[in-house]
């Protein structure tokens, strides 16, 4: 009887035994020593090297040049290919949202208007499907930002490889501030001019009250006072102290001028973000020596009367006025379009060289990580892309991406679906 039971059981289990084996193979990000050979190397900071090689080991660029000894490194032939530093996006929601319309998957906006202590890095999902989708385009690094309210939280620069947020953290944080806005949020915004003004004045008032509180908190703290637990002010006091910069989101020209005044009078370390109408007051931004992260380039002009290309030409005009301009895609799932944003900026007045800097060395400098990212130099992080041509061109194919020394798989869900459905079987006929 017992024997029969065993037989019955094993018969039941038989179909499941197949589970021990899987088809296919999952390629993991691979760490190691790599020599990328015979490529055209665009270093960004030290010109272009023809027929050059890059040696990657221990997560760093060990050597660059025409004569590099591979040693025991795995050699990757890059004949006819081009090597660029990994592209840095100056602002996104990548990792903080999975499906745009589903509240359950939105982790970028906490309740409350003043929540600077909300850390984006805490909510970054390293396994977001959008991350492998993004990095195969050569975008290796992004500033992921909380949004909504006056002080929505603290943004974090992340590399798009790793299994924990800490492994992804790329060394920069900044507190986000939405400067009071006199602009309409979108063409759907039906508020009256009066309502907009009232809301603006109210927000300005609130901002100044909070700032007053933060400076007081900081003064008391440095004086050694015992303070009640106040995480919001604790975080803002770091901005007052200059430990954390303020990422000031501001777009309308008049607001930009007010923001500059505010930043100057408060002596805050600040980076302007958004800056859609920056071209209107570019000289003022340059005079204030404030760096800018602008984008997306692919947006409508802010005013009906503007030239159709006002958004495309904005970064070029600011750059010409002497502003240090970095570019962002300001997206989540399509942060992969950063290179095309840079391409449009290049075409409409910024020039290719400056546009390339706007997605490599400039954001690295603005975020204070230029010792590690933003150009191909010995000693910097092994974060780069290998492409068939100019990475801003849609025709170009990206062949390899390395992030922080890891060779990342050139695969993602989009590619897997392509591979499965390009030639579906069965086709039309019934199975």
């Amino acid at each position, binding site marked *: 009887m017992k024997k029969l039971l065993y037989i019955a059981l094993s018969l039941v289990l038989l179909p499941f035994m197949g589970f021990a084996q899987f088809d296919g193979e999952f390629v993991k990000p691979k760490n190691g020593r790599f020599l990328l050979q015979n490529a055209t190397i665009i270093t960004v900071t030290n010109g272009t090297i023809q027929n050059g090689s890059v040696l990657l080991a221990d997560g760093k660029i060990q050597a660059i040049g025409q004569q590099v000894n591979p040693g025991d490194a795995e050699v990757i032939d890059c004949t006819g290919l081009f090597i660029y530093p990994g592209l840095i996006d100056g602002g996104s929601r990548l990792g903080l949202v999975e*499906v745009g319309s589903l509240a359950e998957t939105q982790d970028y906006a906490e309740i409350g208007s003043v929540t600077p202590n909300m850390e984006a890095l805490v909510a970054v999902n390293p396994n977001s499907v959008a991350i492998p989708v993004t990095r195969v385009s050569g975008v290796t690094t992004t500033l992921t930002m909380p949004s909504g309210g006056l002080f929505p939280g603290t943004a974090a620069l992340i590399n798009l490889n790793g299994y924990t947020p800490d492994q992804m953290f790329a060394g920069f944080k900044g507190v986000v501030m939405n400067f009071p806005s006199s602009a309409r949020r979108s063409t759907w915004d039906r508020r009256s*001019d009066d309502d907009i003004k009232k809301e603006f004045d109210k927000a300005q008032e609130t901002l100044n009250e909070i700032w007053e509180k933060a400076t007081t908190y900081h003064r008391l703290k440095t004086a050694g006072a015992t303070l009640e637990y106040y995480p919001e002010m604790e975080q803002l006091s770091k901005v007052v102290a200059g430990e954390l910069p303020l990422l000031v989101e501001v777009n309308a020209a008049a607001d930009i001028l007010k923001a500059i005044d505010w930043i100057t009078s408060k002596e805050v370390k600040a980076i302007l973000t958004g800056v859609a109408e920056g071209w209107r007051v570019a000289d003022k931004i340059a005079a204030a020596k404030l760096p800018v992260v602008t984008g997306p380039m692919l947006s409508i002009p802010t005013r009906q009367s503007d030239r159709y290309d006002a958004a495309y030409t904005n970064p070029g005009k600011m750059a010409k006025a002497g502003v240090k301009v970095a570019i962002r895609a300001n997206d989540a799932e*399509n942060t992969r379009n950063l290179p095309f944003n840079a391409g449009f900026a290049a*075409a409409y007045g910024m020039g290719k060289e400056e546009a390339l800097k706007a997605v490599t060395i400039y954001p690295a400098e603005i975020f204070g990580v230029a010792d590690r990212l933003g150009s191909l130099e010995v000693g910097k992080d092994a974060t780069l892309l290998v492409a068939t041509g100019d990475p801003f061109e849609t025709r170009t194919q990206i062949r390899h991406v390395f992030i922080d020394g890891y060779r990342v798989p050139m695969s993602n869900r989009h590619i897997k679906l392509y591979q499965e459905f390009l030639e579906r079987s069965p086709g039309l006929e019934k199975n």
Partner: protein
Amino acid sequence: MKKIFQAFLISLLPMSWSVAQTPTGSVLIKNAHVLTVTQGDLENTDVLVENGVIKKIGKNLSATNIEVIDASGLYLMPGIIDAHSHVALDAVNEATAPITSEVKMADVVNPYDIGLYRALAGGVTISHAMHGSANAIGGQNITLKHRYGSGNPEDLFMKEAPRTIKFALGENPTRVHGRGNGIQPRTRMGVDAVIRNGFNEAIQYKKSWEDYNKALKVKGASPVPPKYNERLQTLADILDGDIIIHCHSYRADEIYALINTCREFGVTNIVFSHVNEGFKVAPELAAYTMGASVFADWWAYKFEVYYSTAYNAAILTRNNVITSINSDSGELIRHLYHEAGKAQRYGELTDEETLALITINPAKQLGIADKVGSIEEGKQADLVLFNEHPLSVYAIPQMTFVDGVKYFDIKADDNDMRLRVSASEIVEPIFLKEHDHRCMHGVDFFFTNFGRNLFNHSH
């Protein structure tokens, strides 16, 4: 008194003439790199346009008394066509019933929309102004030629274009009706049922008219005519093959279901729009439909597009589906050549296949491919000149022609290209973005708290 009335009538006459005739132009474009889309690339070639029509394509052409443009070093391609847009519409949704086929977008065209000029600046000469996606069967669309400058909406209509209608599947109609309003459809089963019910009612309606018309022929009979119903008449016209369906869709199951329903009712004139999971049913789309009009790379903005791929256009093209790239956005419409370029990256389409995505293929889907969508002798002269190959990210449109008339010239582009300036608005409003998700424009009154956040993204 009578005299005054007559004078008044006579004064109206020129207006009626201007309604009857939209402007056409003549121009000779010399030495361009001509991307014909259907007949290959022609280097250093001239295109002669007479009275809005492409008269001749060749070398060393000459003409007298018309403008000659030296296009040496420039690229000439057919005017770009957007098969799914809401540009120039004052209203988008009539969301009050699951079927509103009696509604016409032709009634709400705003010729002053600056979006038309911006689209022209992006090389777009024709857009398909569509009803929104709130209903399983929405309103009737209108194909627009971007003849910016007229205050008369009818001057924008492409009168030769066949009638089209908007259908919508999945989350949008179920959200507005089933979840927002407590009526069918709440599920994809319900959407299919609503469409079937509509078609079946239309069959009955059609029959009642056929019976009536038959009875009229009987001597001495005086039959009572059926009650006229615009909604059902429109559905009957669909069944008769007089209207092309353009259906908002995302998931493969709902696409497949509508293909089956249409086949059952003998409807073959159907184009699937957005169709993010079209790649999963590509063989069916190729065999039974007029094609798929997709986004180049949009995904994950809502759940029904989470399992999509930017390789959609490539998979569809390789499976012989007539494929186009649509904008559904007043922003995206300005750089459809770039959107097509992105589709080229994902799947490595050829230049010609890629340009077809925004020219001849959408023309086929709108039923106007015999008139526009390629550079061929005899076709309407909708043309755009680029400074570089239009699939380069560095390409900038230089001039755009509709019917041979130049509506955009980068050298004549002024600081303010509005046709009408509002006197009541003292401070010009500043918009941070185009609300580029117009598909659900005008349905917010259905929602209080639940579902409101969906309006951030509501294609």
